[in-house]
């Protein structure tokens, strides 16, 4: 199934996220990822939802979300016309013999080492989902102890914005 990115402006109220998540489960829609954060207006939060489904599903998701009173605006983002990023923290096993090799890989991916111990390195990587996955793949052979990933966030390219919130 193709993936679609929806950018959703919502009232920054408690309970809004549960309304959104609940709607997905009861209508049988699949969420690939979901990321929430407050916007430049403190009363408004922005949820980026990546949905798994065909055009019919995405249309239904948008329309049903729009019916929620706390939802202010929804925009489906075009993959080519927007920038999409994920963030991951990867804790990988490292000793004196592997540490420099891992650091080389991290360098190539323009990732960052954010923590180090005698037996581990913790790496921060941000980028498109494919990049995060590729780094993960490269690090596998060293022994990944733990991964934390955020959902994707996305913003349109150029001077386009999701719209005025009145």
């Amino acid at each position, binding site marked *: 199934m193709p993936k679609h990115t929806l950018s959703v402006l919502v009232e920054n109220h408690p309970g809004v996220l549960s309304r959104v998540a609940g709607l997905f489960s009861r209508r049988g829609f699949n969420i690939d990822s979901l990321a929430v954060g407050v916007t430049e207006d403190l009363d408004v939060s922005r949820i980026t939802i990546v949905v798994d489904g065909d055009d019919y599903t995405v249309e*239904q998701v948008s*329309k049903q979300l729009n019916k929620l009173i706390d939802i202010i605006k929804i925009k489906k983002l075009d993959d080519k016309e927007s920038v999409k990023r994920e963030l991951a923290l990867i804790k990988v096993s490292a000793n004196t013999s592997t540490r420099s090799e891992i650091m080389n890989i991290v360098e190539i991916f323009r990732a960052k080492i954010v923590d180090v111990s005698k037996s581990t390195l913790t790496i921060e990587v941000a980028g498109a989902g494919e990049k995060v996955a590729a780094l993960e793949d490269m690090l596998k052979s060293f022994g990944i102890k733990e991964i934390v990933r955020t959902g994707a966030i996305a913003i349109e390219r150029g001077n386009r914005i999701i719209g005025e*919130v009145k």
Partner: protein
Amino acid sequence: MSGGDVVITGAEAIVKALELEKVNLIFGYPGATILPFYDALIGSSVRHVLTRHEQGAAHAASGYARASGQTGVCVATSGPGATNLITGIATAYMDSIPIVAITGQVSTEQIGKDVFQEADMTGATAPFCKHNYLVKDVKELPRIIKEAFYIASTGRPGPVVIDIPVDIQNSKLDFKYPEKIDIRGYKPNYNGHPMQIKKIVSEFSKSKNPVICAGGGVISSGASDVLMKFARKHNIPIVTTMMGKGAIPCGDNLNFGMIGSHGVYTANYALNNCDLLMLLGARVGDRAINTATKLSKKATIIHIDIDPAEIGKNLEAHIPVVGDVENVLSDLAPKMDEVHFNDWFDELSDIRIKNQKQIQIYEDFVNPRNVIEILTGFLGETSVVTTEVGQNQIWCTNNFKSKRPRDFISSGGMGTMGYGLPAAVGASFAKGIDFVVAIEGDGSFQMSMQELGTIIQEKLKVKIIIFNNNRLGMVREMQKVKNNGRYNQVFLNSNPDFVKLGEAYGIKGEIIKNDREVGAALDRMLKHDGPYILECKVNPEESTL
């Protein structure tokens, strides 16, 4: 500014807000966490009807809303009181009925501690209501109540829940009732797009066999008169969904009846053979349009609905129009070409005549169809009929001839047994109604029969007809067809004597056992100045088909 600037309690603010919303009637059941509200209610202009179960209060509010066109209000305490409302809230949600449900909640600082009679009402009702609120600051109360009534009654109507902790009801506020509403996430679109209306005009010009399908949205939008004029001018046949029953009078020659798995032949024939289908405020439910009813493949679909999410959900529309049915039809009517569909209309009229069914008269049982037909003849335009869910609903829907919008009340989408009797209680309070008749099955009656107490206490004159076949007849019918007659758990062999049960409450009643008795019994029932139970012995083998 309305309401004046005064310092009052949250509970008093609720009552004041209800008065300002011109609510003079609420249905409810008191309890610990809603005590301050019940205390503030004393001496107010709001009349409170004490039902015998919270579910009855929600259904009564819904019945009142459907009969009167006003927003219904129900009240309950926290915990079980609140959760008992939920079936009523869900029933109203499925049928787009405007109600506001006010529930007590445990004290703010106790929320989340699993204290006595605590239930997460906003979490529990989120799937079943248009919107809900948990009031966390007493200052928010006036705005929230104002918004709740606005959201419930505008756009696609539906239930709104306001959960109010008991400490909020006891806190003081400087009461100011807002005059304006601005909810940035809620702006219903009432007028259809002019381009889409142009397209409709051109489709009608190309069409030979158009059909209009009127749903519940025609009734809630108040579009009946505009629709009648429009269809009459161009001779366009109209069919209805169950929720659309009453949108136009059943006796009118424009009305070819109800579509769907329980509908009439002519209406389904029209769907099978049309080249244009204009859906008005209908959500294309699975019982209305499904594989069995086989919508014509060549038909151009025009779908007019105020809820954009209904368009394209169950049926792809060629011309989607988001808007209020009355507004869209009013815009469309003057733009239409001089088209008439007399041949098609005559074809359907012939089919209707050929397929008219004569109702059989029984010697040893009562034929429910016969009861409904005779009842229809007795009732005028100022009556309301409610039904339960089961065989009684189908017998009534297919044989009761609606004379106007809002005279037929039945749980359509949810199919809630136990709806009809409390809905009849609510409908009894609508202005200008003389007779309210509740059509019951013996199974569904026993789901809400405690409301006989409400009927007596409030001196209502609800006429109750019970089709008693000592069975859960509809389930039995499904087991006959789907499970090859392996009947299980559908026998109600220990039914009470319903007439005696009525007597215990002080309600007059009688039992009839064959069709010869029907006319005289209905006459006695309607002439009796008070509530009445008419029990009809129905053959357990009697089907709805």
